[in-house]
């Protein structure tokens, strides 16, 4: 977003003045009060705005700010990110309130595209979900597969083993979807057997960063994406207990909102942005992000032909045709 501090400050000062004058003569008759409000300037002009609903895990790592800076300098497009959970982002897009989504829940994405709301899905990058927990590992899940680990945490948690707590995002983002999938894989009915099954299962109802902080305070296990965990590592005593494994793959995709459903979306800029994200320039930027700070990249860009094969099975290279 290009900031226009001058206009903003002019607007603020103008209103303050009007308010002050107005306050000084509250005795004036109401009809004298009709100072034309329309003369105050609005901070965003009708420039080329592209609105992207995205996930808190991307925002919390700082990647979005970096993408925004580079892309805006390059194109002059005003890129606006609204960070929500993946579930909410897709809903925002269904309503046509944004032009593009950047999310990480393949099953929900597929539904979004199949329902006709999303077009031109392109996978961009991936990393892994990790199960983090206290170093003492009270449930003893180190070196297990993710599914076994979930079974073990469940068993320990429902037996009230001291110190075993699992914090769930609980706000229906991609990470939460992944967590539910793991519970299902482990053979539990999420609604029936996991929710409200005891004090060991804590629903945070917050973004990834907040959830990690909460898990840290409670010395609990939680499922996190690798990127957010790495960028919060300094603040946490939690350690990764289970990492890697295809079951824990975390794939990020960009999907444009279908202009046939919502004619006033900025379809042209959505296409341009997707094409830039899958260009070498975009992928290098994503692949380099966090290298200097964390010693390893937070996200691994996807290249053809790897992306078309399992476990990814998505399109990552063909540019979207411009209208």
């Amino acid at each position: 977003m290009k900031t226009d501090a001058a206009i903003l400050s002019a607007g603020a000062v103008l209103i303050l003045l009007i308010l002050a004058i107005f306050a000084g003569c509250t005795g004036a008759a109401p009809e004298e009060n009709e100072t034309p409000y329309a003369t105050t300037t609005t901070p965003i002009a009708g420039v080329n705005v592209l609105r992207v609903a995205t996930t808190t895990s991307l925002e919390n790592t700082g990647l979005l700010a970096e993408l925004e800076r580079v892309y805006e300098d390059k194109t002059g497009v005003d890129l606006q990110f609204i960070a929500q959970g993946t579930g909410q982002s897709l809903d925002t897009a269904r309503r046509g309130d944004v032009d593009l989504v950047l999310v990480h829940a393949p099953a929900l994405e597929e539904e979004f595209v199949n329902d006709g709301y999303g077009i031109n899905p392109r996978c961009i990058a991936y990393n892994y979900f990790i199960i983090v927990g206290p170093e003492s590992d009270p449930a003893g899940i180190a070196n297990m597969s993710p599914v076994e680990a979930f079974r073990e945490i469940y068993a320990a948690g429902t037996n009230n083993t001291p110190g075993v707590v699992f914090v769930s995002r609980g706000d229906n983002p991609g990470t939460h979807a992944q967590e539910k999938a793991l519970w299902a894989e482990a053979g539990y009915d999420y609604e029936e057997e996991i929710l409200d099954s005891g004090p060991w299962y804590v629903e945070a109802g917050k973004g990834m960063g907040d959830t990690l902080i909460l898990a840290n305070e409670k010395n609990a296990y939680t499922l996190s994406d690798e990127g957010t965990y790495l960028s919060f590592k300094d603040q946490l005593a939690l350690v990764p207990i289970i990492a890697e494994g295809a079951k824990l793959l975390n794939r990020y995709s960009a999907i444009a909102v279908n202009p046939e459903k919502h004619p006033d979306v900025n379809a042209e800029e959505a296409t341009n942005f997707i094409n830039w994200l899958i260009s070498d320039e975009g992928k290098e930027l994503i692949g380099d992000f966090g290298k200097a700070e964390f010693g390893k990249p937070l996200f691994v860009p996807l290249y053809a032909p790897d992306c078309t094969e399992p476990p990814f099975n998505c399109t990552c290279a063909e540019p979207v045709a411009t209208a």
Partner: protein
Amino acid sequence: MVNGNPIIEGFIEAIKLIVTLDPQVVEITLRSLYVSLSATFVATLIALPVGALIYFYEFRGKHAVVSTLQTLYALPTVIVGLLMFLLLSNIGPLGFLRLLYTPKGMIIAQTVLIVPLLMGLTVSALSGIDRDKRYTITALGANRFQTVATIIMEARFAVMSAVLLGFGRAIAEVGSVMIVGGNIRGATRVLTTAIALNTSMANYSMSIALGIILLAVALGVNITLSLVQRR
């Protein structure tokens, strides 16, 4: 783990940010001021005349109206946010205005939030004027309009407090601007939503710094308005 006390660090950080006029902080602060002052201004334009009408005219159900206004003092900000979100969303009734996720949408939400407060307090402010004074004014030969004008003039300090309270509620709230504004960096991020975000990113000292700036801004506005008033 975190070293040092985030509150003390926050103070140091706040001073640094203010002294160096950090462009992002300046921008967020100005946007906060712009949104909340606009909302207060619009709300004042609506609430003062209507509040005066409610006070001066006797009508059936007046008590009910006043009680309703007073109940709405407690209007939860997230509920206003949710209602405005549903109204302003692209598929909502006012979606064609494309105001969701814009500062204008945030101004509307905050206006809706504080209008009942300003209206109710205007009625109270006017009620606070001695009834004898009203008779005296009439006895001195004032016509109806002059009476109304004089009473409002008498009540101006109480009305000003109402306006300041409304501004305070607007600039301090986070619920509606988060939902309606979306906390977009450089477009709709204001002090309160920036504090919420920085807290969720564990930048506690930055949050404290922004909180101090928020309070300083409120202080500044109060001083400015009371100086003008004392003129």
